[in-house]
């Protein structure tokens, strides 16, 4: 009985990984998915401690120490995870990823120390786990440090050459050890050092904005390293979990690059060229501009309590009023309160917005005048600015030299999130820069307003 329990537990755990990962892919189920995968993990760990036997049938030793190690890890991990600020999440993920990589590397190292390379397959798995785990560990730690802004990008001439050479050397030594062409634990330690160094060199030159991609890549690396461990111990959850993360992580990396409109090679190697730093965020005269995809904007709005739409001349140019009304409907169906903030001079004629919105059959009751809506912005979750510019330009309040100084504007910048739909960074009627676009709580959804609006509607329907 007892000996079939572990395979069953393992099978359940593997299945929870699959289901959990699947559920993580949709906002509605993501939280549950995480919990399910976590539950499966607990099962697998408990099962291993209780029921694992080696081929000879002996149970595990050192149980108190193992439990102690788990306790220590749990306390530290939990503390770190709950204390970290929301903005520091990415580096935290990177850190934990590094821990996993180190763990995998250690296992391989110990395996090699105990048994050496039994067969080509066994040796390959050992060495792969060692090399990949080490790279993942040191790379993740560097990524962590860089995101914590304790280190800048470091580039030197010939860096790529050095990297490639090092990688080649590591691979050759690893292969030799695997095939038992070379042997010896010290050599394995040297190999580890080499791999660690490569991890460092690999991440060093990559710009901060590209770090998420790198972390995702290293994440899938750790997955593969874990799978190697699974291969070594013929352990299915490790194999399944590892490969799953390896393949899903790789796809995720590619998707992330795509959503930045770049190839993965450009991200990883582009840094060596001068314009490498270009990325989703653009440095402007007044600061950094953040872009947002229609998908993200849709999720932001769908999970908001209140959304205020600020229509401007761009809405008219794009003839996006019908799509806008639809967006309103979709959001309201999701329980979001939607209002329109109509600025008295939005558009190019008095009442321009009224004409458009009436045409799209937007109820008069949803239109709110500037004086009434302005006090509401601080409690608004998301403001969607549709082709408006001058009427939301904070310069009107602060910059006495500005031609629009003194004009009352919509104080959208007080809202928690501002999404601005326009085609470019170009100015509006008054011909002046708009500082709003550079605010930290502003993100830009570039493109024709009608196209963007339709994309938003489609995305919101999927949520």
């Amino acid at each position: 009985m007892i000996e079939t329990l572990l395979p069953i537990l393992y099978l359940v755990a593997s299945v929870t990984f699959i289901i959990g990962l699947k559920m993580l892919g949709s906002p509605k189920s993501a939280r549950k998915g995480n919990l399910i995968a976590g539950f499966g993990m607990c099962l697998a760990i408990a099962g291993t401690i209780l029921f694992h036997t080696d081929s000879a049938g002996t149970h595990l030793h050192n149980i108190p120490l193992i439990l102690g190690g788990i306790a220590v890890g749990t306390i530290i991990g939990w503390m770190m995870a709950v204390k970290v600020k929301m903005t520091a999440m990415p580096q935290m993920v990177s850190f934990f990823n590094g821990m996993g990589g180190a763990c995998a590397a250690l296992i391989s190292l110990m395996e090699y120390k105990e048994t050496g390379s039994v067969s080509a397959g066994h040796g390959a798995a050992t060495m792969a786990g060692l090399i990949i785990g080490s790279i993942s560990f040191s790379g993740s730690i560097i990524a962590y440090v860089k995101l914590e802004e304790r280190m800048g990008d470091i580039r030197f001439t010939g860096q790529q050459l050095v990297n490639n050479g090092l990688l080649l050397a590591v691979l050759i030594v690893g292969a030799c050890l695997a095939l038992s062409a070379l042997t010896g634990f010290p050599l394995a330690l040297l190999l580890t050092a080499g791999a660690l160094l490569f991890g460092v060199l690999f991440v060093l030159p990559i710009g901060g904005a590209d770090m998420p991609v790198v972390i995702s890549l290293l994440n899938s690396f750790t997955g593969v390293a874990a799978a190697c461990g699974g291969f070594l111990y013929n352990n299915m959850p490790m194999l399944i979990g590892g490969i799953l993360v390896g393949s899903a992580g790789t796809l995720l990396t590619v998707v992330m690059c795509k959503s930045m409109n770049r190839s993965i090679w450009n991200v990883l190697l582009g840094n060596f060229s001068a314009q490498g730093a270009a990325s989703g965020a653009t440095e402007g005269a007044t600061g950094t501009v953040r872009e947002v995809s229609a998908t993200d904007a849709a999720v932001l709005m769908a999970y908001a309590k209140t959304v205020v739409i600020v229509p401007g001349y761009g809405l008219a140019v794009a003839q996006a009023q019908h799509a806008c009304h639809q967006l309103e409907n979709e959001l309201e169906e999701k329980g979001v309160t939607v209002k329109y903030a109509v600025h008295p001079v939005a558009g190019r004629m008095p009442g321009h917005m009224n004409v458009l919105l009436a045409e799209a059959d937007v109820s008069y009751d949803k239109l709110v005048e500037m004086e009434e809506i302005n006090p509401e912005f601080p409690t608004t979750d998301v403001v969607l600015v549709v082709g408006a510019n001058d009427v939301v330009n904070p310069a009107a309040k602060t910059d006495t030299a500005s031609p629009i100084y003194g004009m009352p504007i919509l104080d959208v910048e007080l809202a928690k999130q501002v999404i601005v739909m326009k085609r470019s960074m170009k100015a509006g009627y008054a011909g002046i820069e708009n500082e709003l676009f550079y605010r930290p709580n502003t993100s830009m959804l570039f493109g024709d307003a009608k196209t963007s609006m339709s994309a938003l509607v489609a995305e919101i329907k999927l949520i």
Partner: protein
Amino acid sequence: MTIGILLEMAQGERRVALVPASCASLIKAGHSIIIQSGAGAEAGFPDDAYVQVGAQVAARAEVLAQAACIAHVAVPTTAEIGEYPKGTSVITLVYPKRNPDTLAALAQAGVSVFAMDAMPRTTRAQNMDVLSSQNNLAGYKAVVVGANAVGRIFPLMMTAAGTVTPVKMLIYGAGVAGLQAIATAKRLGARVEVTDIRPETKEQVESLGAKFIWVEGLENVRIEGGYVAGVTDEILQKQKEAVEKSLFAADVVITTALVAGGKAPTLITAEQVSKMKFGSVIVDMATDAGGNCESSQHDTQVTVGGVTIIGGGNLAATVPTHASELYGKNVVNFLAHIAKPDGISFDTEDEIIKATLVVHNGEVKV
């Protein structure tokens, strides 16, 4: 058969019974057309246009002498009745219930009269239904007239000089004219409320985006042939109370309520008018049938205590081009039904002929 068209002599009548396009259809069907010179001018159709499609343009006397059948729009005046040669068939608006004297005069003149307004409101007769075609245009025009008269603009506008609130409109009666008035007012951006006593109009009104004022007990109103059958005074009283709040808040009021050809119900009393908003406007489209507003006067505009009341009995005549086009098409369809090139059928077995032939062989048939 020779069909004659005369210049309309009724006051304010700018329509013409057949436009060139309808003449063309009739000529193709084997009839010939003779038209009094200038008959179409006010409606936007000069003599040339008629000649081009093959009609003959002539003096009035000539038309009267030659035509076996006269296509006419307005209710014939006494002068006009006097001119008709005996035996002529006249296709025209008559409103038999409201105009017994005219009918008697027509009978005496020995003509046969088809009342276009008496057309049955059946699906089959829809393309000959002048009440629909003309009231539809009139409903549109009533809104334009109201918009022209009121000191406000219809739509909501949020501008640098402040917000202009939309006009509040109240419409009595959601028949053909009322529905089109709703649609037009909504287009212009007004907030529209509507009252009617046929319960099924609620859905129709809402299908045009307006608010229907529900009256308790409305579900019990009986309908016959599309018209209200028996309306109790109780329900009219309840209606009066239900709409009063809207009436006193309204900037523009349009009344279209009729009851099956008879006298129009009085829906706005003089006392209510005195409580209405200063500067508001009433367009009473029922003045031909006595009016829905006590203070309204037929075809003129009066101002009572700051409220402008426009008697708009014949608004279709103020869009004569389109009105004549549609009227002409109705007449063509009607003639296709009742006439062959050799003459008109007076076979009262036919439901449509039975309903419309109001004077024949010197007899009044209703």
